[in-house]
């Protein structure tokens, strides 16, 4: 982890009657990133680096030194997973007139294309609600956009990159996820782009820590469910990730990885399971004929899993058998697609909960952060996980969630571009 004059901030912060937790968390954050300097909440929460507290001259100095190492636009971070490609794009909003004149046409065109649309082609989507505005990155202020499209549409994306002469910008494309390896040659051959490949777990952790540190306006990045065992009183509440370590980080993408994180640079992959989001969607497609995650979730929300699962005692005792009722011919015939989707979702989710809980016990960790795109628009699973963690641990284990669910790997990749570790 590199420093860039940030240590000096710590000193000034200490002089400035800042709560003692702050320096520690600041040290862990990449120094050249900061959120809106005007935001009071972030500073008081100690989550973020505060430029406000730094003297003007220091900021100026740093800005100059940073400028030299600052990579040219465009700034992208990419995470190519088994199912989805996640792309984060930093749109600078502080472009001077002088800069604007210098800016090449295709850079402008890319910026315009990405920021003026919310959907790209048939399958690309920009998650507008996740956009982080007025973010300061390496001395530049702008908006961070979050875009995703299915991995199987990557060829179309590459074609677009070729058409827009992306390669002429001589940018480094930081990419993580398995696809960074699998499609490296395609990037080179189809779009004349050289990928800078990054480890997905490194990126994931870096991304989580960063986003949590900068998000402060509006709802906090991290949240949990209050009263998870009582469906009527279960409500989402913001959570402040102070002293986050040790932390169990459960990334639910196509498959699942479970990491024990002791500090930004000290973590281990505890285990993983192949029963993840890909399994939910895959099974739903086969069982119900649906074709998208949204469709599958929609059905699941309308279904009733107990018609599919075999309840021996009661569902809360955990003593039921997933798809157990489907051993019987009559019951197979009376079940609906919605019930099947629901049962699939419940089964996959509870299984992840169960493995997570065992890992937490084995690693002696009490805080679990669930991330990954399986949780996108999937309150049902989140509540089930919150319930499972709470119920089985008798309240000892806390399930935490993050709004930017699946984008942390891509954010981590972007951070690597701006600030090589």
């Amino acid at each position: 982890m590199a420093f860039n004059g940030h240590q000096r901030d710590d000193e000034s912060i200490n002089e400035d009657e800042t709560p003692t937790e702050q320096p520690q968390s600041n040290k862990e954050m990449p120094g050249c990133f900061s959120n809106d300097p005007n935001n009071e909440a972030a500073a008081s929460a100690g989550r973020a680096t505060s430029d406000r507290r730094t003297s003007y001259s220091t900021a100026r100095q740093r800005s100059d030194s940073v400028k030299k190492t600052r990579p040219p636009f465009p700034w992208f971070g990419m995470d190519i997973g088994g199912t989805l490609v996640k792309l984060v794009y930093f749109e600078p909003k502080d472009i001077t007139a002088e800069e604007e004149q210098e800016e090449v046409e295709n850079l402008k065109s890319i910026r315009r294309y990405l920021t003026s649309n919310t959907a790209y082609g048939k399958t690309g989507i920009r998650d507008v609600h996740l956009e982080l505005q007025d973010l300061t990155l390496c001395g530049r202020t702008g908006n961070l956009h979050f875009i995703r499209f299915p991995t199987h549409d990557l060829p179309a994306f590459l074609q677009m990159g070729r058409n827009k002469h992306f390669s002429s910008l001589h940018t480094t494309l930081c990419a993580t996820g398995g696809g960074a390896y699998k499609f490296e040659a395609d990037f080179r051959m189809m779009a004349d782009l050289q990928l800078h490949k990054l480890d997905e777990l490194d990126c994931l952790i870096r991304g989580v820590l960063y986003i949590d540190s900068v998000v402060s306006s509006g709802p906090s990045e991290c949240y949990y469910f209050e009263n998870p065992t009582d469906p009527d009183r279960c409500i989402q509440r913001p959570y402040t990730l102070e002293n986050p370590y040790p932390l169990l980080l459960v990334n639910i993408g196509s498959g699942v990885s479970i990491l024990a994180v002791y500090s930004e640079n000290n973590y281990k992959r505890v285990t993983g399971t192949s029963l993840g989001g890909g399994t939910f969607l895959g099974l739903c497609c086969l069982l119900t004929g649906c074709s998208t995650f949204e469709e599958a979730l929609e059905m699941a929300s309308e279904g009733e899993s107990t018609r599919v699962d075999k309840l021996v005692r009661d569902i809360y005792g955990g003593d039921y058998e997933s798809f157990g009722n489907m051993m019987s011919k009559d019951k197979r015939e009376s079940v609906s697609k919605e019930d099947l989707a629901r049962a699939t979702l419940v089964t996959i989710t509870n299984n992840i909960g169960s493995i997570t809980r065992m890992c937490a016990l084995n690693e002696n960790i009490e805080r679990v952060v669930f991330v990954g795109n399986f949780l996108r628009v999937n309150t049902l699973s989140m509540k089930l996980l919150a319930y499972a963690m709470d119920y089985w641990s008798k309240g000892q284990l806390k399930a935490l969630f993050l709004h930017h669910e699946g984008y942390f790997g891509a954010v981590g990749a972007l951070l690597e571009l701006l600030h090589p570790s």
Partner: protein
Amino acid sequence: MAEFVRVDSSTSGHTMDKSITLPPDEIFRNLENAKRFAIDIGGSLTKLAYYSTVQHKVAKVRSFDHTTKEATGDNLYEISMQEEVTARLHFIKFENAYIETCLDFVKDHLVNTETKVIKATGGGAHKFKELIERKLGLKVDKEDEMTCLIKGCNFVLRNIPHEAFVYAKHADSEFRFQTTQPDIFPYLLVNIGSGVSIVKVESEDKFERIGGSSIGGGTFWGLGALLTKTKRFDELLQLASKGQHTSVDMLVKDIYGGSYGSLGLTGDLIASSFGKSATADKGETWEGPKFSKEDMAKSLLHMISNDIGQLACLYAKLHNLSRVYFGGFFIRGHPVTMHTITYSINFFTKGEVQALFLRHEGYLGAIGAFLKGAEEDNPNQYSWGENYAGSSGLMSVSPEMYPMQRARSGTFSFDMLEMDRLEGKLVNLPLLQDASSYIPDTVDLTEDAHAREYWLYCFEEALDGVVQRAVASQPDMPEAAERAEKFRQKYRHKLQTLRHQPFAYGSLTVRSLLDTREHCLNEFNFPDPYSKIKQRENDMALKYYQKAVKCLDELSWEERQYALVRGVLAGNVFDWGAKAVSDVLESDPEFGFEQAKRQLEERPWLVDSYDQWFERLKGPPHKCAMFFVDNSGVDIILGVMPFVRELLSRGTEVVLASNSGPALNDVTNGELQILTESIAAMDPVVQAGLREDRLTLVQSGSSSPCLDLSRLDKVLAMVVRERKTDLVIIEGMGRAIHTNYYAMLSCESLKMAVIKNSWLADRLGGKLFSVVFKYEVPATSQHSAALTPS
């Protein structure tokens, strides 16, 4: 209803079938004396358990009263066939479809039972409660499923050697049986029924369900039925065994293009189960692959097995347990699931934990329910032994022989387990150096294909002779020939089964082949085919006893020690159990002791530590010697007894351990008592020994020509401790070569045998009648007995 879930169409697997006639000789045996019933009804199989008494003939010896003129001829003792009643547990497993037929059969054949209740467990117990009560007139008394399962598991682990095994699909022998541990606790039992229960068992009565999962056999079955429209569990497994999961699952290499090197995840690992089926139908330009039933079933099997394996490992790690047994209908003898579970456990624990399976896993619930009902009889105070004649053995691994298929062919298929109650409780020899690693058998025929072939051939060859002798042993019984023929068929069938499934009864060994033969002989009421031969030989040998002793007494001390050893060895040549010898004996009944001595190999013997033994004899006498004796006649009388006499003279106490029941021409405890008394009458040394309690006789607890030092009579073990035994002598091929050749004892030991089988002699680098004289002193202690504190 949507088309995709309409799976079943024609036949239902659970229709009652009454057209089946049960084979009464083979199934539900000994029902007439049955009492205490228990039943375990699972999703597809019913297991019925009952306790019964078996009446069979035993040969009893009784000393003639020589003061009266009762005796006819020169016989020392008389042999009488008596009816003896022994206890046996019967367990029968059949498909639920036959439950009504079976209950009718039981009702019709049940004679005089005072039983009023039947213990019941399993998910189906409730469903069939009314039927059972109506058919049998017994009150159904439900027992907790988990309690029964654990009780049953403890029982088989304790009483059945080679109960647990490791499954290795690609190894020479797929089943690697585990030796029975002196302490079976603690362990983890992962029961994979419809769901999964993970139970930690700490002692006989202490267990706790520490976890579970909803993804189990029911998930495989239910999801499998939905995905493949195949409704039978076995068919689903068969589909799975033919499929390729890589077309359905998203592998690490599908995401990475290769392996994920930094984490050590290889490209072939499954990253996302069913991950490929999600993207299959998407996009107009992209035509996804069609998924075959086989591929989906395979993917599902992997998904579920891996998941269960992972959870089991996490629980084992959390509770620090290394023994993990898997059971439930998902496992039940299915090589496919045993393989995938084993693979998963190996993957997740990197080999630290082994997945263990149980031969009688399907019976655990029924055994446990039975034991619950029999608590007043305290069945755990006894040891029980698997009866190889009555038990079916492990199911074949070949898919062609799956129970499903046999059921389909219209014949009633069933599986049986029978266990005999043994006299008292069997325990370890306290002098074993390490009881947990002791393996009685020298060669595991399951692994040694060449040896297996030879011994199976050898036993098959010897069968005619055994049949003839069996018939000859019962000249007054005209139906003996018919029974002997049935014996022949039964044993030949066992041999054939073992040829194809050497693992059927645990590790195949010469001992198990011998024991199976004894069990089969008993089954057809040939309790002791050698009784007359033994009697004749004993009578004959006794006549030479005094002369033999006199000759020995005339020798110098040094000469005598050597002559005594040669005597034991020459005596051991007399053995009807060894084919090479029985041929000679049968053709030449005059084959004498002196001839046998001449037949013996000259020193140096094949294994020869006589010089060390001789040096030892110059030292202080042993405190107490335990002598595991072998054959009747010349062996015991002219070989062993003079040797014993010398030990007594030296001041060493001697305990003679002989078989509790007959096996070949081995001297039994009953016979030996009469013989010893008879010798005492001629020999003041022996007489003094008996009188002063320096010579004692104990029974071994076994009725085998071989010797398992981990299953010995409790009294024997007690005597070993009390007398501070510091020398163990094991005599004969069965006890010192086929078994215990490598047994490590914590005191001095002497293993003496003559190799009377040319194949074995060849194997050991010797020739026919080569001598093994193995005197061993444990490294840790010289002379003094190293009794491990108990």
